[in-house]
C-alpha cells in the first residue's frame, strides 16, 4: 500500500460567522493526481492555504509526509511546490532569473540549482525566452513561467490551484500534459479547479467540495456510480404524443423524461440497451425523429445531483 502524503482530519476554518471549511477530511496517497473540485468559494483555496500553514484554522489536524504541518515545518515545505492561480513572478528579473530565484529558496547548491533551472525551462518550453522579462511574454507563456517557478526544485508534492484560469486551449493542454508528466516522474499532485473537464481528464481521484464540505470522494467511475443517472438519451422530435412519452417512461431503467416541444430527454439509471428500447417505441409509433444523442454522466451531472446545482453556474 502506498504511503499517505497528505492527511487532513476534521478541519474547521471560520471567517467570523462564515464557515469556510466544515469538518473537512482528506487523505491523499503517494503518486496520485488528486482533484479538488468545487465552485468558487467552496473552500478549495482555503484548504490549500491551511495545508501550507499559511492560514490559521480553528480545528482539525494536518499531516504532510507523515509529519504534522506547522508554520515552521521548513523541511516539509521544501518538498512542496505551489503554483497558484495568479502569476507570481518578479517583473524586474528575466525568465531564467525568476526561476533561479524561486528555485534558490529551496535549493542552495548552485550547481544543482542550475541543473534544476535548466530542466524547468526545458520542461515548460521556455528555452527561447529565458532572457526575456515577464512583461514581454504572452499570457500562456507567463503561466508556463509561473509553473516553472513552482516546480523547478522538483518537489514531491505539487499543489496547483486553478493554474489554467484565463489560459488559451493550447497552453491549457500543454499545462495538463506537463502535470501528468510530473506525476509519472513520481510527484503527487493536488489539483484544484472548477473546470470539471480538466479534473476528469487528469485526476486519478477526486473530492467534490461545496460550502466547505466534502460532498463526495472517489475515482471518476466511483463518483459517477454514486448518482442515479447513468445515461442521458436526447432525441430531436417535433411531435410527441403524451401516451408515447408515458410508454417510454415505463421502460426498464428509465427514471425521468423531459420534452420541450423539440427535444425529448430520457434519463436512465443503469441498463445496457436503453437507446435501442427508446428508439423501438418511437419506430413502433411510426414517429419521425432527427438527431439522437446518448451521453454518459459527467462530473457536472454528479455535482448537480449531489448538490442540486450546476458546478460552473454556482456563484458564492
Amino acid at each position, binding site marked *: 500500500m502506498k504511503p499517505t502524503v497528505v492527511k487532513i482530519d476534521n478541519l474547521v476554518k471560520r471567517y467570523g460567522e462564515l464557515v469556510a471549511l466544515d469538518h473537512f477530511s482528506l487523505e491523499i496517497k503517494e503518486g496520485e493526481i488528486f482533484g479538488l473540485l468545487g465552485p468558487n468559494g467552496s473552500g478549495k483555496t482555503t484548504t490549500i492555504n491551511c495545508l*501550507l500553514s499559511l492560514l490559521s484554522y480553528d480545528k482539525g489536524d494536518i499531516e504532510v509526509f507523515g509529519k504534522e504541518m506547522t508554520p515552521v515545518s521548513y*523541511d516539509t*515545505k521544501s518538498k*512542496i511546490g505551489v503554483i*497558484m492561480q495568479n502569476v507570481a513572478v518578479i517583473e524586474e528579473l528575466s525568465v531564467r532569473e525568476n526561476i533561479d530565484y524561486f528555485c534558490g529558496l529551496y535549493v542552495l547548491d548552485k550547481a544543482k540549482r542550475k541543473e534544476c533551472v535548466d530542466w524547468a525551462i526545458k520542461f515548460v518550453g521556455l528555452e527561447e525566452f529565458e532572457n526575456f522579462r515577464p512583461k514581454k511574454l504572452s499570457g500562456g507563456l507567463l503561466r508556463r513561467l509561473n509553473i516553472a517557478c*513552482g516546480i523547478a526544485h522538483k518537489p514531491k508534492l505539487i499543489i496547483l490551484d486553478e493554474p489554467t484560469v484565463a489560459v488559451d486551449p493550447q497552453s491549457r493542454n500543454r499545462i495538463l500534459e506537463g502535470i501528468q508528466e510530473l506525476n509519472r516522474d513520481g510527484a503527487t499532485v493536488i489539483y484544484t479547479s472548477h473546470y470539471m473537464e480538466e479534473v476528469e481528464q487528469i485526476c486519478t481521484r477526486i473530492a467534490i467540495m461545496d460550502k466547505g464540505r466534502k460532498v463526495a470522494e472517489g475515482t471518476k467511475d466511483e463518483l459517477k456510480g454514486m448518482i442515479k443517472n447513468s445515461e442521458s438519451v436526447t432525441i430531436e422530435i417535433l411531435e410527441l404524443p403524451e401516451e408515447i412519452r408515458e410508454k417510454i417512461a415505463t421502460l426498464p431503467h428509465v427514471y425521468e423524461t423531459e420534452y420541450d416541444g423539440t427535444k425529448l430527454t430520457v434519463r436512465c439509471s443503469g441498463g445496457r440497451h436503453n437507446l435501442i428500447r427508446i428508439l423501438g417505441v418511437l419506430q413502433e409509433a411510426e414517429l419521425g425523429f432527427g438527431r439522437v444523442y446518448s451521453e454518459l454522466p459527467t462530473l457536472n451531472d454528479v455535482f448537480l445531483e449531489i448538490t442540486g446545482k450546476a458546478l460552473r453556474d454556482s456563484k458564492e
Partner: protein
Amino acid sequence: MQVFKAFLKILKSRFPSAVIYIVLFFVVGMLMTRSEATESAWEKVQLKMVVEDLDNTAESRALAEILGKGNEIIPPLASEDDLTDALYYTTVDYAVTIPAGFGEKLAAGETAGLLETRHIHESYATADVEMLIGKFVNTYGACRKLGYNSPEAANEAVKTLSDTPAVEMLQKETEKKNSAELLLIFFRYMPYILLCVILNMLCPALVVMSKKDIRFRTDCSGIRPSSYTMQIFAASALYIGVIWLIFVVAGGALNGVMYTGRLWLVVLNSLVFALFTGVLALFISEFAPSETVVSLMTQLCSLGMCFLCGVFVDQALLGNGVLRVAQFLPAYWYVRLIRIVNGDIPFDGGEVALALGIQAGFVAVLVMLCILVHRAHYAGPARKMA
C-alpha cells in the same frame, strides 16, 4: 543569499533613474558651490572706434586722446560705405568725425553740433562714449571760464578725465567661502538627494518583494522568515551605504577637502540621515503603494522636509513658526548640526549629541512602526486555534 542577490538585481534594474538624480545633483551642486566661491570682478567694455580728426587743433587732439583711452581706435576707413558696412557688421562700434572748426567753436563756447557721430547698435558703452564727449566739452568750458587758454584748457580736460577712479567690488570678507564651508553647503543639500534616490529606488524594490503573490510563494518555500528579512535588510543597507558613500567621497573630492576634525561629525550626521531615509523607505513600502504613490510620497517628503527644515533656505531666514514645526522632522536636526559645525551656532557637544540623538530617535521610532505595520499585515504564522 538568494533573496539578497535577487533584491540587488531589482535595485540594479532601477539604478539608471538613480544615476540621473545623482548626476543632476552633482552638476547643480557644483554650479551652486562654484557661484558661492567665485569673487565678482568687472572689466570695462572696449569699443572699436574710428576717430577722424579733420580739425587737428589742440582741442580736437585732446578729444581724440580721451576717446582713445579705454577703447580700441581703428584707422579711418576708405569710404562712407565701408564705414556703414563696418558699423553694420560690428567691426566698428562707434565712429566720430571731428570736423574742421571744432576747436574754434569749442573755444567760442558752443556746445551743440560740434561733432558728427555714427553708431548702429545701442549699448551702455555707446552711451558712455556720448557722456564722455559731453564731459570733455563741459570740462573744457569750465577750464576756459577759469582763465585757461585753449591749449591749456584742452590739456586740463584730458588730465581731469584721465583720472578715472578705481572701481572696487565691495564684498564682505565673511561671504568668501573656503573649501570646508563649500563642503558644508554640499552636505546641507544632501538630505534632498538622499531622500530622492533612496525612496525612489528602494521603495519600489521593497514593494515588489512584498507583493501578495510573491510573498505567498516565498512563504510557501523552505526559507525561514528571519533569513528572508535579514537578506532584504542586508541588501537595503548595502544600497543605502553605497549611495551614502558616493556622496561623502564625491563631496570631499569635488570640494578638495579631507575629512578631519569636526567634518567627521557632518559625515556621521549624513550617515544617520541616510539610515533614517532607508527606514522611511521600509515604512512606506509596508503599505505597498503603487509607483505613482511612491513618487508622490518621495516628492512630498523630500521637498516638504527640505523646504521646512532649512535645506534649501537657510534656517536663519525661516520664521519661528516654520522652525517650530520643522523641529518635529529629522532634517531640521540634520541642518542644525551642519550649522553648528559651520559656526552659525556656537559649538556645544550637548547640542551635537542632541541633533544626532533626535535623528537616531526618528530611526528607532520608524523601525518600531515598521515592525508593527508588518505584523498587522502578516498576522504571524498560521496555527491551529483550538
